[in-house]
């Protein structure tokens, strides 16, 4: 490509992404630094009085520190469900790739069903109630695992297929049992796809609104997404606090993405897309 084209397309791209992708973010930021009355004008302008910190404090204090409880709930939910998804998913993907058994057809069909079929809401609540895990964080963790497993297995299996079997053989010759072989040899080799899965599924679980709404209702168990409705009522909306809340709950995912962004594309190239 000629030098002028590199600059031309680059500058065009910067203009385009600034207008379409950065302006809404700048809007969120400026709104969350404004005072209530100024924010209510909904304008895209620099705050005349910069009160971001005061707003952050107010958002955390609102409704008896609900946001802190919600952050603890959301972090617990995300960490445990993604960890279980990775371990359970890798176990299935690994045996599915390595061992040809009569179950293979059935399991492949189940994975496809898990991707396509929308979960049946009320019957799921009914099952959870029968098991005594409805309205519990534990129950919601298992729900996220059940719904996220198919995608995890799909991405991981394509990657496991690229790991030479000679590595398994060597470990077996050295006397490793199935658990040691899997946890000590195979799982560490899956690191590139694990990073991709962890980032993609964490974003999904942390940002999930629908499943907590159905399966973990109630203010005491709120996840961070549900706190967004704290500042909205039928008559008055505290726009500055609403946007501060959006800002505060987006930061964890933003930080995670910035740390792992290089690995995500390489993990995808190795797994999802090639498979």
């Amino acid at each position, binding site marked *: 490509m000629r030098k002028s084209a590199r600059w031309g397309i680059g500058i065009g791209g910067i203009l385009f992404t600034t207008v379409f992708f950065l302006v809404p973010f700048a809007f969120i930021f400026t709104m969350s630094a404004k005072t209530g009355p100024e924010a209510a004008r909904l304008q895209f302008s620099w705050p005349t009085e910069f009160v971001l910190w005061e707003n952050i404090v107010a958002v955390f204090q609102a409704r008896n520190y609900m946001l802190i409880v919600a952050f603890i709930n959301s972090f617990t939910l995300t960490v445990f469900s993604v960890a279980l998804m990775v371990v*359970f998913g890798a176990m299935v993907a690994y045996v599915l790739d390595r061992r040809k058994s009569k179950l293979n057809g059935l399991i492949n069909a189940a994975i496809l069903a898990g991707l396509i079929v929308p979960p049946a809401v009320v019957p799921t609540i009914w099952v959870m109630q029968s098991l005594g895990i409805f309205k519990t964080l534990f129950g919601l963790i298992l729900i996220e695992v059940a719904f996220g497993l198919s995608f995890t297995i799909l991405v991981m299996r394509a990657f496991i297929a690229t790991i030479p079997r000679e590595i398994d053989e060597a470990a077996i010759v050295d006397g490793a049992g199935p658990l040691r072989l899997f946890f000590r040899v195979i799982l560490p080799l899956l690191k590139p796809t694990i990073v991709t899965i962890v980032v993609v599924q964490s974003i999904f679980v942390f940002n999930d609104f629908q499943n907590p709404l159905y399966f973990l209702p109630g203010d005491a168990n709120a996840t961070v997404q549900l706190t967004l409705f704290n500042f909205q009522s039928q008559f008055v909306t505290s726009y500055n606090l609403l946007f501060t809340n959006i800002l505060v709950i987006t930061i964890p995912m933003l930080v995670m993405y910035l740390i792992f962004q290089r690995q995500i594309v390489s993990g995808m190239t190795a797994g999802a897309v090639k498979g």
Partner: protein
Amino acid sequence: MHSEATARPKTAAPRAVARHVERSYPLWFYIPGGLVYVVLFIVPTLLSFYFAFTRWTLFDSTFVGFDNFIQFFAEPGLIGSLKNTLVYGVVTSASKVVLGMLLAVLLSGPIIARGYLRSVTFFPVLVSAVGVGLTFQVLLDPFNGVVNQVWTAITGADGPGWLTNPDLALLSVAAIDVWKGVGLATLIYIAGIAAIPNEYFEAARVDGAGAWQQFRSIILPLSFPATSTVILLSLIGGLRSFDLIWSTTQGGPGFSSDVIASVIYKQYQAGFYGLSTAGNVILFLVVTAIVYPLSRWLNSKETSL
């Protein structure tokens, strides 16, 4: 360790091999994931085919035959959601394919500020659908919203009520969905384009192919696996979409942006569990009837490439 393994002769008796394979890759590895999946996904799905035909209070249920389905297809508000679901799924998925590929091609070339541009395109994916929905509700406010302020500044006329006009609401939400989701589609395309061997481009350049010809004859066909991934993922997501619609319009105004997923929630909230589950069964049938044959067809095209 390695040399031992590679030197090992592969002449062991088939039965011995089979036994060692069984021991090293035990089938019980399927159990932890399988148990969670069967109990919380398969069982409720199967149950839904019974409860959809009942009047249901969670404690007891009376069998009412096709009543729930008749009601679903008879009420304009409910049947409209079926059409809206299809429009929403097709519009969002098609836009993500076209825009995702376009952005990925630009962001795969040797342009300045590439890393920065890639990150910025992905940022909306990191914000929750509810956060995005509430933000755009404010940006698209018919009177004071930033979008209509700019609209008035340019055209001099009042802008439309993006989320309050029944003819526009569904398409506005779809556009917000594309804004939020195009970064993921772009990422998948970037990975797909990166997987194309460089020799193809070199050969094309030697033969004097221009940028358009390279796109037409190399990138377009060889990124097909990425295209089918994007189509399937965004179509499945679009047909099931709930969060964004709920946080922008709640299905309104009237029923003009109701989709099956929001109808399921409204009926659940109202305590009509049987009708809500019937909605689930209809969504199941719609998604399966579209996505399953499509994925078979895309797969067959992929292998014939």
